[in-house]
Protein backbone atom coordinates (compact mmCIF):
# COMPACT_ATOMS: atom_id res chain seq x y z
CA UNK A 1 0.00 0.00 0.00
CA UNK A 2 1.10 3.54 -0.49
CA UNK A 3 2.04 5.62 2.48
CA UNK A 4 2.40 9.37 2.36
CA UNK A 5 6.10 10.26 2.45
CA UNK A 6 7.49 10.63 5.94
CA UNK A 7 8.77 14.14 6.39
CA UNK A 8 12.20 14.76 7.83
CA UNK A 9 11.98 14.77 11.60
CA UNK A 10 12.83 17.87 13.52
CA UNK A 11 15.79 17.71 15.89
CA UNK A 12 13.62 18.42 18.96
CA UNK A 13 13.14 15.59 21.39
CA UNK A 14 10.10 13.44 20.77
CA UNK A 15 8.28 11.56 23.47
CA UNK A 16 9.19 7.90 23.73
CA UNK A 17 6.48 5.52 22.60
CA UNK A 18 5.69 3.20 25.46
CA UNK A 19 5.46 -0.39 24.35
CA UNK A 20 3.52 -2.56 26.70
CA UNK A 21 5.48 -5.78 26.95
CA UNK A 22 4.24 -6.84 30.37
CA UNK A 23 1.47 -9.17 29.12
CA UNK A 24 4.00 -10.98 26.90
CA UNK A 25 5.92 -11.98 30.01
CA UNK A 26 2.88 -13.62 31.58
CA UNK A 27 3.04 -16.94 29.69
CA UNK A 28 6.78 -17.10 30.40
CA UNK A 29 6.15 -16.45 34.08
CA UNK A 30 3.30 -18.94 34.25
CA UNK A 31 5.32 -21.73 32.66
CA UNK A 32 8.29 -20.98 34.93
CA UNK A 33 6.00 -21.05 37.93
CA UNK A 34 4.60 -24.41 36.87
CA UNK A 35 8.03 -26.07 36.55
CA UNK A 36 8.70 -26.69 40.28
CA UNK A 37 5.16 -27.99 40.79
CA UNK A 38 5.34 -30.37 37.86
CA UNK A 39 8.79 -31.44 38.99
CA UNK A 40 9.94 -33.59 36.09
CA UNK A 41 11.34 -31.32 33.34
CA UNK A 42 10.43 -33.76 30.59
CA UNK A 43 6.82 -33.84 31.69
CA UNK A 44 6.92 -30.08 31.94
CA UNK A 45 8.14 -29.70 28.35
CA UNK A 46 5.45 -32.09 27.15
CA UNK A 47 2.76 -30.15 28.99
CA UNK A 48 4.06 -26.82 27.76
CA UNK A 49 4.15 -27.96 24.14
CA UNK A 50 0.66 -29.38 24.51
CA UNK A 51 -0.43 -26.03 25.93
CA UNK A 52 1.11 -24.11 23.05
CA UNK A 53 -0.64 -26.36 20.53
CA UNK A 54 -3.97 -26.05 22.30
CA UNK A 55 -3.44 -22.32 22.72
CA UNK A 56 -2.87 -21.88 19.00
CA UNK A 57 -6.08 -23.74 18.19
CA UNK A 58 -8.03 -21.59 20.62
CA UNK A 59 -6.39 -18.49 19.17
CA UNK A 60 -7.32 -19.42 15.61
CA UNK A 61 -10.92 -19.88 16.71
CA UNK A 62 -11.06 -16.78 18.92
CA UNK A 63 -9.27 -14.24 16.74
CA UNK A 64 -12.17 -13.63 14.37
CA UNK A 65 -14.69 -13.49 17.18
CA UNK A 66 -12.82 -10.79 19.06
CA UNK A 67 -12.75 -8.59 15.94
CA UNK A 68 -16.43 -9.24 15.32
CA UNK A 69 -17.17 -7.95 18.78
CA UNK A 70 -14.70 -5.08 18.54
CA UNK A 71 -16.01 -3.82 15.24
CA UNK A 72 -19.76 -3.85 15.75
CA UNK A 73 -20.28 -4.86 19.40
CA UNK A 74 -21.88 -8.04 18.12
CA UNK A 75 -22.03 -10.92 20.60
CA UNK A 76 -21.98 -14.07 18.52
CA UNK A 77 -22.77 -17.13 20.60
CA UNK A 78 -23.14 -19.11 17.39
CA UNK A 79 -19.41 -19.10 16.64
CA UNK A 80 -19.20 -22.72 17.83
CA UNK A 81 -21.31 -23.77 14.85
CA UNK A 82 -18.46 -22.92 12.49
CA UNK A 83 -16.07 -25.04 14.53
CA UNK A 84 -18.35 -28.04 14.13
CA UNK A 85 -19.22 -27.48 10.48
CA UNK A 86 -15.55 -26.99 9.61
CA UNK A 87 -14.63 -30.23 11.34
CA UNK A 88 -17.41 -32.20 9.62
CA UNK A 89 -16.58 -30.81 6.19
CA UNK A 90 -12.98 -31.87 6.71
CA UNK A 91 -14.15 -35.27 7.91
CA UNK A 92 -16.01 -35.78 4.64
CA UNK A 93 -13.09 -34.64 2.50
CA UNK A 94 -10.62 -36.80 4.41
CA UNK A 95 -13.03 -39.71 4.00
CA UNK A 96 -13.00 -39.25 0.23
CA UNK A 97 -9.22 -38.98 0.21
CA UNK A 98 -8.67 -41.95 2.52
CA UNK A 99 -5.91 -43.24 0.24
CA UNK A 100 -3.92 -40.02 0.67
CA UNK A 101 -4.59 -40.05 4.40
CA UNK A 102 -3.54 -43.62 5.07
CA UNK A 103 -0.37 -43.74 3.00
CA UNK A 104 2.74 -43.11 5.11
CA UNK A 105 3.87 -40.05 3.19
CA UNK A 106 3.97 -36.61 4.71
CA UNK A 107 3.49 -35.01 1.31
CA UNK A 108 0.27 -36.87 0.47
CA UNK A 109 -0.99 -36.48 4.03
CA UNK A 110 -0.48 -32.72 4.00
CA UNK A 111 -2.07 -32.51 0.58
CA UNK A 112 -5.17 -34.29 1.89
CA UNK A 113 -5.21 -32.05 4.97
CA UNK A 114 -4.70 -28.96 2.86
CA UNK A 115 -7.68 -29.85 0.68
CA UNK A 116 -9.81 -30.69 3.71
CA UNK A 117 -8.90 -27.41 5.38
CA UNK A 118 -9.60 -25.44 2.19
CA UNK A 119 -13.05 -26.98 1.84
CA UNK A 120 -13.73 -26.43 5.53
CA UNK A 121 -12.66 -22.79 5.42
CA UNK A 122 -14.50 -21.95 2.22
CA UNK A 123 -17.60 -23.70 3.52
CA UNK A 124 -17.57 -22.02 6.91
CA UNK A 125 -16.64 -18.68 5.35
CA UNK A 126 -19.70 -18.82 3.09
CA UNK A 127 -21.85 -20.07 5.95
CA UNK A 128 -20.55 -17.21 8.11
CA UNK A 129 -21.45 -14.71 5.41
CA UNK A 130 -25.00 -16.11 5.22
CA UNK A 131 -25.25 -16.30 9.02
CA UNK A 132 -24.34 -12.61 9.26
CA UNK A 133 -26.82 -11.53 6.59
CA UNK A 134 -29.75 -13.62 7.84
CA UNK A 135 -29.27 -13.93 11.60
CA UNK A 136 -26.98 -11.17 12.85
CA UNK A 137 -27.86 -8.23 10.61
CA UNK A 138 -31.44 -7.80 11.90
CA UNK A 139 -30.19 -7.46 15.49
CA UNK A 140 -27.30 -4.97 15.20
CA UNK A 141 -27.07 -3.02 18.43
CA UNK A 142 -29.40 -5.29 20.44
CA UNK A 143 -27.30 -7.45 22.71
CA UNK A 144 -29.98 -9.58 24.31
CA UNK A 145 -31.49 -10.46 20.94
CA UNK A 146 -28.00 -11.20 19.58
CA UNK A 147 -27.35 -13.71 22.34
CA UNK A 148 -30.71 -15.41 21.87
CA UNK A 149 -30.75 -15.52 18.10
CA UNK A 150 -27.12 -16.57 17.64
CA UNK A 151 -27.62 -19.35 20.21
CA UNK A 152 -30.68 -20.34 18.22
CA UNK A 153 -28.54 -20.40 15.09
CA UNK A 154 -26.07 -22.67 16.87
CA UNK A 155 -28.83 -25.13 17.79
CA UNK A 156 -30.17 -25.16 14.25
CA UNK A 157 -26.67 -25.76 12.90
CA UNK A 158 -26.12 -28.68 15.28
CA UNK A 159 -29.42 -30.23 14.21
CA UNK A 160 -28.49 -29.81 10.56
CA UNK A 161 -25.21 -31.60 11.24
CA UNK A 162 -27.18 -34.47 12.74
CA UNK A 163 -29.31 -34.61 9.61
CA UNK A 164 -26.39 -34.48 7.18
CA UNK A 165 -23.69 -36.45 8.97
CA UNK A 166 -25.69 -38.44 11.53
CA UNK A 167 -25.84 -38.02 15.29
CA UNK A 168 -23.22 -40.56 16.29
CA UNK A 169 -19.69 -39.81 17.39
CA UNK A 170 -17.22 -39.97 14.50
CA UNK A 171 -13.59 -40.96 14.54
CA UNK A 172 -11.32 -38.31 13.06
CA UNK A 173 -8.08 -40.15 12.35
CA UNK A 174 -4.83 -38.28 11.99
CA UNK A 175 -3.06 -38.89 8.68
CA UNK A 176 -0.45 -41.60 9.06
CA UNK A 177 2.71 -39.52 8.89
CA UNK A 178 1.37 -37.07 11.46
CA UNK A 179 0.78 -39.73 14.10
CA UNK A 180 3.21 -40.32 16.88
CA UNK A 181 6.00 -38.13 18.14
CA UNK A 182 9.45 -36.95 17.28
CA UNK A 183 12.16 -37.37 19.87
CA UNK A 184 14.17 -34.29 20.72
CA UNK A 185 16.71 -35.43 23.28
CA UNK A 186 14.68 -37.19 25.93
CA UNK A 187 11.50 -35.36 25.08
CA UNK A 188 8.86 -36.81 22.80
CA UNK A 189 6.86 -34.13 21.02
CA UNK A 190 3.75 -35.16 19.15
CA UNK A 191 4.02 -34.27 15.49
CA UNK A 192 0.53 -32.89 15.26
CA UNK A 193 1.26 -30.42 18.06
CA UNK A 194 4.19 -29.04 16.12
CA UNK A 195 1.92 -28.60 13.11
CA UNK A 196 -0.73 -26.90 15.24
CA UNK A 197 1.79 -24.45 16.68
CA UNK A 198 3.08 -23.67 13.20
CA UNK A 199 -0.42 -23.06 11.85
CA UNK A 200 -1.22 -20.79 14.82
CA UNK A 201 1.88 -18.69 14.27
CA UNK A 202 1.21 -18.39 10.56
CA UNK A 203 -2.37 -17.23 11.21
CA UNK A 204 -1.17 -14.75 13.83
CA UNK A 205 1.56 -13.36 11.57
CA UNK A 206 -0.86 -13.06 8.65
CA UNK A 207 -3.37 -11.21 10.80
CA UNK A 208 -0.75 -8.79 12.11
CA UNK A 209 0.42 -8.18 8.57
CA UNK A 210 -3.07 -7.45 7.31
CA UNK A 211 -4.03 -5.31 10.32
CA UNK A 212 -0.86 -3.21 10.21
CA UNK A 213 0.12 -3.07 6.57
CA UNK A 214 -3.05 -2.88 4.52
CA UNK A 215 -5.75 -0.29 4.13
CA UNK A 216 -8.43 -2.84 5.04
CA UNK A 217 -6.47 -3.68 8.17
CA UNK A 218 -6.20 -0.02 9.15
CA UNK A 219 -9.94 0.34 8.62
CA UNK A 220 -10.59 -2.66 10.86
CA UNK A 221 -8.37 -1.26 13.62
CA UNK A 222 -9.92 2.18 13.25
CA UNK A 223 -13.40 0.65 13.23
CA UNK A 224 -12.74 -1.28 16.43
CA UNK A 225 -11.89 2.06 18.05
CA UNK A 226 -14.64 4.18 16.55
CA UNK A 227 -16.88 2.69 13.88
CA UNK A 228 -18.93 5.86 13.54
CA UNK A 229 -15.88 7.95 12.60
CA UNK A 230 -14.87 5.38 10.00
CA UNK A 231 -18.30 5.88 8.43
CA UNK A 232 -17.96 9.65 8.65
CA UNK A 233 -14.73 9.33 6.66
CA UNK A 234 -16.79 7.69 3.92
CA UNK A 235 -16.28 3.96 4.43
CA UNK A 236 -19.05 1.38 4.77
CA UNK A 237 -18.31 -0.26 8.08
CA UNK A 238 -21.03 -2.85 7.53
CA UNK A 239 -19.41 -4.15 4.39
CA UNK A 240 -16.14 -4.40 6.29
CA UNK A 241 -17.93 -6.15 9.11
CA UNK A 242 -19.48 -8.80 6.89
CA UNK A 243 -16.02 -9.54 5.51
CA UNK A 244 -14.51 -9.81 8.98
CA UNK A 245 -17.38 -12.03 10.06
CA UNK A 246 -16.88 -14.37 7.11
CA UNK A 247 -13.11 -14.56 7.61
CA UNK A 248 -13.61 -15.08 11.35
CA UNK A 249 -16.00 -17.93 10.58
CA UNK A 250 -13.52 -19.48 8.17
CA UNK A 251 -10.84 -19.32 10.88
CA UNK A 252 -13.25 -21.00 13.29
CA UNK A 253 -13.67 -23.69 10.62
CA UNK A 254 -9.89 -24.11 10.46
CA UNK A 255 -9.72 -24.25 14.24
CA UNK A 256 -12.49 -26.86 14.21
CA UNK A 257 -10.54 -29.12 11.87
CA UNK A 258 -7.47 -28.81 14.08
CA UNK A 259 -9.46 -29.38 17.26
CA UNK A 260 -11.14 -32.50 15.89
CA UNK A 261 -7.83 -33.93 14.70
CA UNK A 262 -6.34 -33.16 18.09
CA UNK A 263 -9.08 -35.02 19.92
CA UNK A 264 -9.39 -37.61 17.12
CA UNK A 265 -13.16 -37.75 17.65
CA UNK A 266 -16.00 -35.56 16.56
CA UNK A 267 -19.60 -34.82 17.54
CA UNK A 268 -21.88 -31.95 16.60
CA UNK A 269 -21.30 -30.48 20.07
CA UNK A 270 -17.54 -30.20 19.53
CA UNK A 271 -17.73 -26.42 19.52
CA UNK A 272 -19.35 -26.25 22.94
CA UNK A 273 -16.41 -27.23 25.15
CA UNK A 274 -13.89 -25.08 23.40
CA UNK A 275 -16.18 -22.04 23.22
CA UNK A 276 -16.10 -21.65 27.00
CA UNK A 277 -12.35 -21.26 26.77
CA UNK A 278 -12.68 -19.01 23.71
CA UNK A 279 -14.90 -16.57 25.57
CA UNK A 280 -12.49 -16.52 28.52
CA UNK A 281 -9.66 -15.82 26.07
CA UNK A 282 -11.28 -12.87 24.34
CA UNK A 283 -12.23 -11.33 27.68
CA UNK A 284 -8.71 -11.82 29.07
CA UNK A 285 -7.13 -10.47 25.90
CA UNK A 286 -9.25 -7.33 25.73
CA UNK A 287 -12.31 -7.38 23.47
CA UNK A 288 -11.23 -6.47 19.95
CA UNK A 289 -7.50 -7.05 20.50
CA UNK A 290 -5.84 -9.70 18.33
CA UNK A 291 -2.54 -9.49 20.23
CA UNK A 292 -4.33 -9.86 23.55
CA UNK A 293 -6.25 -12.79 22.13
CA UNK A 294 -2.99 -14.51 21.17
CA UNK A 295 -1.44 -14.17 24.62
CA UNK A 296 -4.73 -14.93 26.35
CA UNK A 297 -5.06 -18.16 24.37
CA UNK A 298 -1.60 -19.33 25.40
CA UNK A 299 -2.29 -18.45 29.05
CA UNK A 300 -5.61 -20.24 29.12
CA UNK A 301 -4.19 -23.33 27.44
CA UNK A 302 -1.23 -23.41 29.85
CA UNK A 303 -3.53 -23.12 32.81
CA UNK A 304 -5.71 -25.91 31.41
CA UNK A 305 -2.79 -28.25 30.77
CA UNK A 306 -0.82 -27.65 33.95
CA UNK A 307 -3.85 -27.96 36.20
CA UNK A 308 -5.15 -31.00 34.29
CA UNK A 309 -1.89 -32.65 35.29
CA UNK A 310 -1.54 -31.24 38.80
CA UNK A 311 -5.15 -30.84 39.95
CA UNK A 312 -7.43 -32.40 37.34
CA UNK A 313 -10.60 -31.57 39.28
CA UNK A 314 -10.13 -27.82 39.04
CA UNK A 315 -9.02 -27.50 35.42
CA UNK A 316 -11.89 -25.28 34.25
CA UNK A 317 -12.18 -23.43 37.55
CA UNK A 318 -8.50 -22.54 37.28
CA UNK A 319 -9.16 -20.67 34.07
CA UNK A 320 -12.01 -18.76 35.59
CA UNK A 321 -9.66 -17.83 38.43
CA UNK A 322 -7.08 -16.76 35.85
CA UNK A 323 -9.67 -14.54 34.20
CA UNK A 324 -10.65 -12.96 37.51
CA UNK A 325 -7.00 -12.35 38.42
CA UNK A 326 -6.23 -10.70 35.08
CA UNK A 327 -9.34 -8.55 35.18
CA UNK A 328 -8.40 -7.39 38.66
CA UNK A 329 -5.05 -6.30 37.25
CA UNK A 330 -6.42 -4.90 34.00
CA UNK A 331 -10.21 -4.57 34.04
CA UNK A 332 -10.37 -4.11 30.26
CA UNK A 333 -8.17 -7.13 29.55
CA UNK A 334 -4.46 -7.46 28.74
CA UNK A 335 -4.55 -5.06 25.81
CA UNK A 336 -7.53 -2.75 26.27
CA UNK A 337 -8.83 -1.32 23.03
CA UNK A 338 -9.43 2.41 23.15
CA UNK A 339 -13.12 2.98 22.64
CA UNK A 340 -14.88 6.19 21.68
Amino acid at each position, binding site marked *: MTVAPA*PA*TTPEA*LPAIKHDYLPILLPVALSALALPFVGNPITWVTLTVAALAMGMMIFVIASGLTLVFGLMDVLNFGHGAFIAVGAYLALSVLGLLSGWVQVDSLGWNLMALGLAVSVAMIGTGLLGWAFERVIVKPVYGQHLKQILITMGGLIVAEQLIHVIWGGDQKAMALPTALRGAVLIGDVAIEKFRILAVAVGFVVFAAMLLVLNRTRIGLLI*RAGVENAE*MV*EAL*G*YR*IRRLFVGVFAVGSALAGLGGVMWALYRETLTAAIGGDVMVLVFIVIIIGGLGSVGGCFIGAILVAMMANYTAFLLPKVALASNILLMVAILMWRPQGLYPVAKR
Partner: protein
Amino acid sequence: MAEPLLTLAGVHTHIGQYHILQGVDLVLPRGGMTVLLGRNGAGKTTTLRTVMGLWKPSRGTVTFDGRPIGGVPTPDIAQAGIAYVPETMAVFSDLTVAENMILAARSGPIDTARLDWIFSLFPALKKFWQFPAGVLSGGQKQMLAIARAIAEPRTLLLIDEPTKGIAPAIIEAMITAFAELKRETTILLVEQNFRFAASLGDHVAVMDDGRIVHRGAMADLARDEALQQRLLGLSLDTHQ
Protein backbone atom coordinates in the same frame (compact mmCIF):
# COMPACT_ATOMS: atom_id res chain seq x y z
CA MET B 1 -28.95 34.43 -5.94
CA ALA B 2 -26.86 31.27 -6.35
CA GLU B 3 -28.28 28.02 -5.09
CA PRO B 4 -27.29 27.44 -1.45
CA LEU B 5 -24.86 24.63 -0.65
CA LEU B 6 -26.76 23.21 2.30
CA THR B 7 -30.38 23.69 3.29
CA LEU B 8 -32.17 22.34 6.31
CA ALA B 9 -35.92 22.91 6.13
CA GLY B 10 -38.12 22.11 9.11
CA VAL B 11 -35.77 19.42 10.37
CA HIS B 12 -36.84 17.45 13.42
CA THR B 13 -34.53 14.91 15.05
CA HIS B 14 -35.41 12.48 17.79
CA ILE B 15 -32.77 10.73 19.90
CA GLY B 16 -34.59 7.80 21.40
CA GLN B 17 -37.79 9.28 22.74
CA TYR B 18 -36.28 12.76 23.12
CA HIS B 19 -37.36 15.37 20.61
CA ILE B 20 -34.11 17.31 20.19
CA LEU B 21 -34.31 19.29 16.92
CA GLN B 22 -37.71 20.90 16.64
CA GLY B 23 -37.88 22.37 13.16
CA VAL B 24 -34.41 23.61 12.22
CA ASP B 25 -34.27 25.96 9.23
CA LEU B 26 -30.75 26.70 8.08
CA VAL B 27 -29.36 27.87 4.77
CA LEU B 28 -25.64 27.80 4.01
CA PRO B 29 -24.45 29.83 1.04
CA ARG B 30 -21.54 28.47 -1.01
CA GLY B 31 -18.17 29.62 0.26
CA GLY B 32 -17.16 31.28 3.47
CA MET B 33 -17.88 30.31 7.02
CA THR B 34 -21.18 30.07 8.81
CA VAL B 35 -20.94 29.93 12.59
CA LEU B 36 -23.58 28.13 14.59
CA LEU B 37 -23.85 29.59 18.08
CA GLY B 38 -26.02 28.68 21.02
CA ARG B 39 -25.90 27.75 24.66
CA ASN B 40 -25.05 24.28 25.94
CA GLY B 41 -27.63 21.73 24.96
CA ALA B 42 -29.20 23.96 22.30
CA GLY B 43 -28.84 21.24 19.66
CA LYS B 44 -25.75 22.34 17.72
CA THR B 45 -24.02 18.98 17.79
CA THR B 46 -27.28 17.24 16.99
CA THR B 47 -27.67 19.51 13.96
CA LEU B 48 -24.21 18.58 12.63
CA ARG B 49 -24.80 14.89 13.33
CA THR B 50 -28.11 15.06 11.50
CA VAL B 51 -26.45 16.62 8.44
CA MET B 52 -23.79 13.89 8.59
CA GLY B 53 -26.46 11.18 8.75
CA LEU B 54 -25.38 10.03 12.21
CA TRP B 55 -28.90 10.79 13.40
CA LYS B 56 -31.80 10.35 11.00
CA PRO B 57 -34.15 13.32 10.79
CA SER B 58 -37.68 12.30 11.73
CA ARG B 59 -39.21 15.11 9.69
CA GLY B 60 -38.09 17.86 7.29
CA THR B 61 -35.53 17.90 4.48
CA VAL B 62 -31.77 18.24 4.30
CA THR B 63 -30.46 19.23 0.87
CA PHE B 64 -26.78 19.27 -0.03
CA ASP B 65 -25.58 20.52 -3.38
CA GLY B 66 -29.09 20.14 -4.78
CA ARG B 67 -29.44 16.56 -3.54
CA PRO B 68 -31.65 15.38 -0.67
CA ILE B 69 -29.45 13.71 1.96
CA GLY B 70 -31.92 13.26 4.82
CA GLY B 71 -31.82 9.62 5.90
CA VAL B 72 -28.95 8.78 3.52
CA PRO B 73 -26.26 6.52 5.07
CA THR B 74 -23.30 8.38 6.55
CA PRO B 75 -20.64 6.99 4.17
CA ASP B 76 -22.65 8.23 1.17
CA ILE B 77 -22.93 11.67 2.73
CA ALA B 78 -19.18 11.71 3.30
CA GLN B 79 -18.59 10.64 -0.28
CA ALA B 80 -20.85 13.42 -1.51
CA GLY B 81 -18.19 15.79 -0.19
CA ILE B 82 -18.91 16.56 3.46
CA ALA B 83 -16.17 16.14 6.06
CA TYR B 84 -16.83 16.06 9.78
CA VAL B 85 -14.72 17.06 12.77
CA PRO B 86 -16.70 15.82 15.78
CA GLU B 87 -16.76 17.47 19.17
CA THR B 88 -14.87 14.45 20.54
CA MET B 89 -12.26 14.72 17.74
CA ALA B 90 -12.43 10.93 17.34
CA VAL B 91 -8.84 10.48 16.20
CA PHE B 92 -7.89 6.81 15.99
CA SER B 93 -5.46 6.69 18.90
CA ASP B 94 -4.10 3.23 18.11
CA LEU B 95 -3.17 4.36 14.59
CA THR B 96 -0.28 6.66 13.80
CA VAL B 97 -0.86 10.21 12.64
CA ALA B 98 0.18 9.04 9.17
CA GLU B 99 -2.31 6.16 9.25
CA ASN B 100 -5.10 8.49 10.37
CA MET B 101 -4.34 10.64 7.34
CA ILE B 102 -4.10 7.65 4.99
CA LEU B 103 -7.66 6.66 5.91
CA ALA B 104 -8.85 10.24 5.57
CA ALA B 105 -7.59 10.37 1.98
CA ARG B 106 -10.08 8.00 0.38
CA SER B 107 -8.94 8.29 -3.20
CA GLY B 108 -5.28 7.46 -2.70
CA PRO B 109 -2.09 8.90 -1.29
CA ILE B 110 -2.18 12.57 -0.35
CA ASP B 111 -0.15 14.55 -2.83
CA THR B 112 3.01 16.14 -1.51
CA ALA B 113 1.95 19.72 -2.11
CA ARG B 114 -1.25 19.28 -0.13
CA LEU B 115 0.56 17.48 2.65
CA ASP B 116 3.11 20.30 2.84
CA TRP B 117 0.28 22.80 3.01
CA ILE B 118 -1.34 20.83 5.87
CA PHE B 119 2.01 20.66 7.67
CA SER B 120 2.39 24.40 7.24
CA LEU B 121 -0.97 24.87 8.95
CA PHE B 122 -0.30 22.29 11.67
CA PRO B 123 3.46 21.72 12.07
CA ALA B 124 2.99 19.37 15.04
CA LEU B 125 1.57 16.75 12.71
CA LYS B 126 4.82 16.59 10.79
CA LYS B 127 6.75 16.14 14.00
CA PHE B 128 4.50 13.33 15.22
CA TRP B 129 3.87 11.79 11.80
CA GLN B 130 4.91 8.26 12.78
CA PHE B 131 3.57 8.40 16.35
CA PRO B 132 0.35 6.82 17.54
CA ALA B 133 -2.28 9.54 17.66
CA GLY B 134 -2.95 8.50 21.25
CA VAL B 135 0.24 10.22 22.43
CA LEU B 136 -0.80 13.63 21.06
CA SER B 137 -1.95 16.43 23.35
CA GLY B 138 -5.56 17.58 23.17
CA GLY B 139 -4.67 20.48 20.88
CA GLN B 140 -2.62 18.26 18.61
CA LYS B 141 -5.45 15.77 18.39
CA GLN B 142 -7.74 18.60 17.37
CA MET B 143 -5.27 19.57 14.64
CA LEU B 144 -5.21 15.99 13.43
CA ALA B 145 -8.99 15.83 13.43
CA ILE B 146 -9.11 18.97 11.27
CA ALA B 147 -6.24 17.79 9.05
CA ARG B 148 -8.12 14.56 8.46
CA ALA B 149 -11.13 16.53 7.25
CA ILE B 150 -8.99 18.42 4.73
CA ALA B 151 -6.72 15.55 3.63
CA GLU B 152 -8.51 15.86 0.31
CA PRO B 153 -10.54 18.81 -0.95
CA ARG B 154 -14.13 18.60 0.32
CA THR B 155 -17.11 20.75 -0.49
CA LEU B 156 -18.29 21.31 3.07
CA LEU B 157 -16.58 21.01 6.44
CA LEU B 158 -18.63 20.50 9.59
CA ILE B 159 -16.49 21.43 12.59
CA ASP B 160 -17.80 21.06 16.13
CA GLU B 161 -16.29 23.30 18.84
CA PRO B 162 -12.63 23.03 17.85
CA THR B 163 -11.51 25.44 20.58
CA LYS B 164 -13.04 23.56 23.48
CA GLY B 165 -10.34 23.00 26.10
CA ILE B 166 -7.58 24.10 23.72
CA ALA B 167 -4.61 26.30 24.68
CA PRO B 168 -4.68 29.91 23.36
CA ALA B 169 -1.54 29.47 21.23
CA ILE B 170 -3.18 26.62 19.35
CA ILE B 171 -6.38 28.64 18.95
CA GLU B 172 -4.30 31.32 17.19
CA ALA B 173 -2.94 28.66 14.82
CA MET B 174 -6.48 27.52 14.20
CA ILE B 175 -7.64 31.03 13.31
CA THR B 176 -4.91 31.22 10.68
CA ALA B 177 -5.79 27.78 9.38
CA PHE B 178 -9.53 28.43 9.15
CA ALA B 179 -8.98 31.79 7.48
CA GLU B 180 -7.09 29.92 4.75
CA LEU B 181 -9.47 27.00 4.66
CA LYS B 182 -12.57 29.04 4.10
CA ARG B 183 -11.08 30.32 0.88
CA GLU B 184 -11.08 26.83 -0.62
CA THR B 185 -14.23 25.39 0.91
CA THR B 186 -17.43 26.10 2.81
CA ILE B 187 -17.34 25.71 6.57
CA LEU B 188 -20.11 25.23 9.11
CA LEU B 189 -18.49 25.85 12.48
CA VAL B 190 -20.09 25.25 15.86
CA GLU B 191 -18.49 27.52 18.40
CA GLN B 192 -19.04 28.90 21.88
CA ASN B 193 -16.01 31.19 21.88
CA PHE B 194 -17.60 34.33 20.45
CA ARG B 195 -14.35 36.21 19.87
CA PHE B 196 -13.03 33.28 17.82
CA ALA B 197 -16.33 32.95 15.98
CA ALA B 198 -16.61 36.67 15.25
CA SER B 199 -13.07 36.89 13.91
CA LEU B 200 -13.72 34.20 11.31
CA GLY B 201 -17.42 33.95 10.58
CA ASP B 202 -19.10 35.46 7.55
CA HIS B 203 -22.59 34.33 8.47
CA VAL B 204 -24.07 33.39 11.79
CA ALA B 205 -26.97 31.31 13.01
CA VAL B 206 -28.01 31.09 16.64
CA MET B 207 -29.78 28.06 18.06
CA ASP B 208 -31.89 27.65 21.12
CA ASP B 209 -34.01 24.71 22.25
CA GLY B 210 -33.65 22.84 18.99
CA ARG B 211 -34.53 25.76 16.69
CA ILE B 212 -32.66 28.46 14.82
CA VAL B 213 -33.59 31.74 16.52
CA HIS B 214 -31.43 34.15 14.53
CA ARG B 215 -29.77 34.21 11.12
CA GLY B 216 -27.72 36.95 9.55
CA ALA B 217 -24.32 38.41 8.81
CA MET B 218 -21.67 37.89 11.49
CA ALA B 219 -20.56 41.50 11.14
CA ASP B 220 -24.02 42.73 12.14
CA LEU B 221 -24.11 40.57 15.24
CA ALA B 222 -20.53 41.45 16.18
CA ARG B 223 -21.45 45.13 16.07
CA ASP B 224 -24.73 44.85 17.98
CA GLU B 225 -23.99 44.17 21.65
CA ALA B 226 -27.62 44.37 22.67
CA LEU B 227 -28.48 41.65 20.17
CA GLN B 228 -25.56 39.53 21.39
CA GLN B 229 -26.79 39.94 24.93
CA ARG B 230 -30.32 38.97 24.00
CA LEU B 231 -29.38 35.97 21.85
CA LEU B 232 -26.38 34.62 23.61
CA GLY B 233 -26.79 35.88 27.15
CA LEU B 234 -23.96 35.41 29.54
CA SER B 235 -23.26 31.80 28.77
CA LEU B 236 -20.78 32.68 26.03
CA ASP B 237 -18.73 35.04 28.15
CA THR B 238 -17.63 32.20 30.37
CA HIS B 239 -15.87 30.67 27.38
CA GLN B 240 -13.73 33.68 26.57
